[in-house]
């Protein structure tokens, strides 16, 4: 088509114009008129585009952080108070807790469990809404931002948001005297890793959900809840009968909990630690690839 070369030059001119504009240079406007395009839009790099989605989430969060902080930050703290301090006062330190007070035993695990629940909650119905009810994902992918960048921004955002909640929890747990050493700082990235490893598969599910999302309720009840209860959060998985113990081994929460306890309480060899990291990393990687495919399938049709 004849216009193609012209359009190519248009684009080059517009890029220059755009950069001039951000510098506040009026010459930018002139350049745009000369190239025959009046548009102020241009294409951003992938990381920049994903970061703009993070900014958008942040704008939302600034308005609603109080209500979300209860479920994401305060709820694990209540668990810590009830289980660590209350229930824990009845638990004698023994071999099962590595000779530690129950508060110390349960604090890192509750951080992981809270982070996982937080991420799963935020990446289920809210992501489905982006496709189905609010449909704002379609608005985003009508801009130069692509479905993949949209997904990337969502993952970065949830990591940050879970990170914030983990920091809040860690500080309050510190006031409870739940941490024994500075290794507790590493529990935060472990919590974030476990959260995205569990959250991104839910996002892939959301992208393939076309009904009202009943399957999430089933996932919460029959997958997430048992996973939190029987992944070594409150008691060692050695207490689980051998025949079904493998269920804990394939639970990402268990891998996160083992890592979290390892970095703050010690007693975890480098081999098992790498194994846990690899499991969570693989789960994250595979589900991110799937989620990307489903996002494109849903948004670019």
């Amino acid at each position, binding site marked *: *088509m004849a*216009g*193609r070369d*012209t*359009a*190519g030059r*248009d*684009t080059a001119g*517009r890029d220059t114009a*755009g950069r001039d*504009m*951000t510098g*506040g240079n009026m010459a930018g406007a002139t350049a745009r008129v000369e190239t025959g*395009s*009046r*548009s*102020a*839009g*241009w*294409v*951003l790099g992938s990381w920049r*585009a994903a970061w*703009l989605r993070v*900014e*958008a989430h942040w*704008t*939302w969060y600034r*308005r*609603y952080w109080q209500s979300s902080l209860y479920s994401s930050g305060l709820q694990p703290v209540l668990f810590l108070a009830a289980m660590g301090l209350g229930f824990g006062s009845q638990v004698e330190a023994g071999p099962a807790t590595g000779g530690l007070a129950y508060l110390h035993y349960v604090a890192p695990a509750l951080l992981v469990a809270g982070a996982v629940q937080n991420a799963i909650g935020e990446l289920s119905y809210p992501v489905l809404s982006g496709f189905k009810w*609010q*449909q*704002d994902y*379609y*608005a*985003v*992918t*009508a*801009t*130069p*931002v*692509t479905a993949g960048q949209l997904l990337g921004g969502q993952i970065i955002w949830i990591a940050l948001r879970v990170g914030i909640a983990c920091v809040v929890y860690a500080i309050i747990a510190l006031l409870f005297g739940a941490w024994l050493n500075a290794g507790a700082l590493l529990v935060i990235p472990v919590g974030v890793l476990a959260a995205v490893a569990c959250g991104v598969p839910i996002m892939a599910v959301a992208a393939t959900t076309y009904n009202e999302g009943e399957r999430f309720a089933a996932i919460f009840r029959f997958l997430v809840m048992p996973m939190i209860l029987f992944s070594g959060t409150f008691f060692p998985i050695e207490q689980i009968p051998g025949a079904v113990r493998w269920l804990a081994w394939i639970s990402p929460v268990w891998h996160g909990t083992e890592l979290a306890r390892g970095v703050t309480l010690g007693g975890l060899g480098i081999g098992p630690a790498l194994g846990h990291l690899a499991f969570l990393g693989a789960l994250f990687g595979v589900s991110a690839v799937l989620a990307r495919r489903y996002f494109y399938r849903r*948004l*670019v*049709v």
Partner: protein
Amino acid sequence: MVEAKALVKRFGDFEAVRGIDVQVRKGEAFGFLGPNGAGKSSTMRMIASTSPRSDGDLRVLGMDPDVDGPRIRARLGSVPQQDTLDTELTVRQNLQIYGRYFGMSRADVRRKATELMEFAQLSERADGLVDALSGGMKRRLTIARSLVNDPDLLLLDEPTTGLDPQARHMLWDRLFRLKAGGVTLIITSHYMDEVEQLCDRLVVMDDGRIVAEGSPSELIARYSTREVLELRFAPGEQGGIAERVAEFGGRVEELPDRVLVYTGDGERALEQVHGRDVRPASSLVRRSTLEDVFLRLTGRTLVD
């Protein structure tokens, strides 16, 4: 601005767009008119570079959407059928965040948001949540949002569906202003008055195909008569009327609730009808519209 050749869109076995040729020129307002399910929205989404074509050739702003989708979208404005706004944020935030996706600086999107809220008469609601806006206001905001990047080409998919007449006229006014400002518009609608008002040129689509193409007046001249006589009858009295009045018009259409007589002179035809002792409950002489063109081409009305 847009050039489509033998453009096809398939969803599985279903062919939504069945090989259409379309050319949209710079600065014009172009319309896709057709009933629901005619393939208008599928075509729009392919032009918007959010939906890959199944077959045929498509160039938008001189580029191939399969290759340069983001670069095309950077210069497009798109008003989808659903508003797709972020209802938990304010009017201003919706505009500013959207502008950022087009690579605009914070200062630029702030200035642009203020300007667009004025344009859409939403300044008073600037810092109110979108959730609390009326349907018409949300629609105006969606249109304002589509203008944030000063698009070269604006795509409007049924922009006024579900709006009351007052809100529709206000939107039309805004679209006229954009066109006067040099923006190329592509509009889909199943309201023939809308397309007739707004579009320089249009295609009539039915069942995934283009059945006619031209300016509104050309199409009316080619496929209809100058005037139409509408005859309405009391329930049950319409039977057999069409045959009795057939000779007074070039063509007669019988609809469930009325009989249409196509003629150069409606008043004269009405006199002749009365002379034949046909007594309609009410009658109306009007100019032909695109609705008549569509009826002629497909045998169906646009909005069922």
